[in-house]
């Protein structure tokens, strides 16, 4: 069974090909079967393979398919590498992916481009599986770019609206900035270590590079560049909120559960390099911290239901980066998994809300929808509880681990911990702000809204609710992968620390309650304060990063493009042409047609030549 691991990406790839080649001529039923079924088959095989792999007790398993390109030492192949880390990732991708596919069969049922949607979705799953299963960085890069492409295609899925196209291009180009750094990192690693096979490369790095060597720092930094691009961390986070332009299942699958966590996967996969470059690892922690706080602030101010969730995704991935920076590799991957459950749940539930309210995105135009949308309501309650890390939900266990690991970091540990706790407090505020505003209070419109509770949409929500609640009990088999990682011993911390960590989200929920439920605090009065108002505007714009990038990068590029539309260099040749032409015209003018003039010039020329001859 393990040998059949190549089936995993093959099923969705076949689904993609059959949907593309039939070009939308298949009936919807069959499209749904192909689209969701291929991922389902993939999930089934993933489960069987995992069972066998775990039973075998091996640390890893390699399946070599074919050599991709072989030039001298450079021999990356289409080889799949399975260990605890890729096992967890592949189960999340196929499992959550299948649920989202199933949900989409209902969600997208009225869309004219049903077949195109599933084609892209299947291609995405195939590419994402390549990313996590590839045994070398080139194959990983293939998946990496592949998921970026699918993300582009799906954000711009409703292509009639140019804004969607803009968001899609922005996502692709911004992540490609990171990808470029990563590509340079690949060149560096190959040039220095002579291989791009991940395991061999890590081993060679450990042998050849001293702790903190400049090469290790450069390599880790470059890979981090790729990771922050894909995972929407500072400073490349600006694309993710706009990426919400795509259909909601896309946001659930690509921009919450799987693709955006690829950066976390990359860092975890190459953690040896980061251990060799402690400064970069510390940078990872601080990037995570800054991002989670920045996104937390912003999420509190947004009005668009999907943008709130998008910023919360950025913030949660910030936690994962914090964990990576703290060396708690397993905690990061664990949070990745629980986050995939509850964030997929939240997005899919948001999709149900949006669909029921005829594509209304503004939460302040909803209100009091708990009776009308019961499934969405309970999904949001459970999802938000897990997101806010209330005790006994899945998010609690993973966030707990991360914060404890942050505290254990030597040096700035306390700082990281405090930041993380503040972030948890914000998470409490914004997640329940959403719940209170949308589901409680008075109805603000869409009174007749009714939930479309088709089983294909309800069943995934139910299953994800269970996972979001109980996912924290899943044991991730990561010990063998991160054996070199430090910080596995149970940290002995005071009860106070635990109490603070548990209290922080409750405190946030309380604040949220006072503002948005009981209205003890009046929001309008607060906004009347000029300081609060300008802060709000600053946070709302995502800390002004978009405007900044527009000014620093986009506008100069457009300016350059505009002033040099017709190629400066060509004007040199145009000059050459015009010189030749004017010389020609000048000489042509001497051809007057007057015989006398010709005779005179002949005589003058003769005199000139003779006198020259005499003089010389």
């Amino acid at each position, binding site marked *: 069974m393990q040998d059949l691991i190549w089936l995993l990406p093959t099923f969705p790839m076949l689904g993609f090909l059959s949907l593309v080649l039939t070009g939308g001529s298949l009936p919807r039923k069959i499209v749904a079967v192909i689209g969701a079924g291929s991922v389902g088959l993939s999930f089934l095989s993933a489960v069987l393979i995992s069972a066998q792999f775990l039973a075998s007790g091996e640390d890893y398993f390699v399946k070599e398919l074919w050599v991709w390109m072989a030039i001298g030492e450079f021999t990356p192949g289409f080889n799949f590498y399975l260990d605890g880390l890729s096992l967890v990732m592949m189960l999340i991708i196929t499992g959550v992916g299948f649920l989202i596919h199933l949900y989409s069969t209902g969600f997208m049922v009225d869309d004219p481009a049903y077949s195109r949607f599933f084609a892209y979705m299947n291609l995405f799953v195939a590419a994402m599986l390549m990313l996590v299963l590839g045994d070398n960085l080139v194959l990983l890069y293939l998946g990496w770019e592949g998921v970026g492409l699918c993300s582009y295609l799906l954000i711009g899925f409703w292509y009639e609206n140019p804004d969607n196209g803009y968001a899609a291009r922005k996502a692709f180009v911004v992540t490609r900035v990171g990808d470029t750094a990563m590509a340079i990192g690949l060149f560096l690693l190959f040039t220095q270590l002579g291989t791009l096979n991940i395991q061999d490369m890590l081993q060679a790095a450990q042998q050849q590079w001293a702790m903190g060597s400049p090469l290790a720092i450069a390599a880790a930094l470059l890979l981090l560049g790729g990771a922050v691009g894909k995972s929407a961390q500072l400073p490349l986070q600006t694309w993710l909120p706009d990426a919400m332009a795509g259909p909601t299942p896309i946001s659930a699958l690509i921009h919450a559960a799987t693709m955006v966590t690829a950066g976390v996967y990359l860092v975890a996969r190459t953690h040896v390099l980061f251990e060799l470059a402690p400064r970069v690892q510390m940078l990872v922690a601080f990037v995570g911290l800054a991002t989670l706080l920045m996104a937390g602030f912003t999420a509190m101010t947004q009005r668009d239901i999907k943008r709130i969730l998008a910023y919360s995704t950025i913030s949660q991935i910030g936690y994962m980066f914090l964990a990576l920076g703290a060396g708690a590799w397993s905690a990061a991957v664990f949070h990745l998994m629980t986050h995939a459950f509850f964030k997929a749940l939240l997005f899919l539930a948001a999709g149900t809300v949006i669909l029921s309210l005829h594509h209304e995105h503004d939460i302040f135009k909803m209100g009091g929808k708990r009776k009308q949308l019961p499934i969405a309501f309970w999904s949001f309650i459970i999802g938000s509880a897990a997101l806010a890390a209330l005790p006994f939900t899945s998010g609690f266990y993973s966030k707990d681990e991360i914060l404890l690991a942050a505290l254990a970091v030597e040096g700035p540990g306390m700082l990281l911990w405090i930041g993380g706790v503040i972030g948890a407090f914000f998470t409490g505020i914004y997640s329940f702000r959403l719940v209170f505003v949308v589901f409680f209070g008075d109805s603000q419109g869409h009174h007749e809204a009714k939930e479309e509770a088709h089983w294909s949409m309800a069943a995934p929500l139910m299953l994800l609710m269970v996972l979001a609640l109980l996912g924290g009990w899943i044991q991730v088999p990561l010990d063998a992968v991160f054996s070199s990682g430090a910080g596995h011993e149970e940290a002995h911390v005071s009860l106070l620390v635990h109490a603070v960590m548990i209290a922080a989200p409750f405190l946030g929920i309380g604040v949220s309650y006072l503002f948005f439920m009981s209205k003890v605090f009046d929001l309008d009065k607060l906004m009347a304060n000029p300081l609060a108002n300008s802060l709000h505007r600053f946070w709302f714009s995502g800390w002004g990063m978009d405007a900044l990038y527009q000014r620093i990068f986009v506008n100069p590029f457009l300016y350059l493009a505009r002033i040099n539309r017709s190629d400066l260099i060509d004007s040199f040749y145009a000059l050459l042409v015009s010189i030749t032409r004017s010389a020609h015209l000048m000489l042509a003018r001497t051809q007057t047609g007057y015989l*006398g003039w010709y005779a005179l010039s002949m005589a003058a020329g003769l005199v000139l030549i003779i006198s020259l001859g005499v003089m010389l």
Partner: protein
Amino acid sequence: MQSIPIEHGLILAGILFALGLVGVLTRRNIVFVLMSLEVMLNASGLAFVVASARWGHADGQVMFLMILTLAAAEVAVGLGLIIQMYRKFKTVDIDVLSEMKG
């Protein structure tokens, strides 16, 4: 026998040549231009004859004979062209006939 000094002959040829050249450059009637050209040809022919007399060599006289035939041929062709031109344009003014501009 007292021969004419070579300088005299050459000066005469030079004067004739200059006269012819001035004629070519200044006249607008193409018939006169052609005549001036004849004068120039004969001036050079005279220079050849003078030179051959000075050196006692026959080559110069041979050259003169050649110039003579050349001039005859040129006049024949030139006059033919002039007649054609006159028929076509009703004028022998070369400035009016400046068709061959570059």
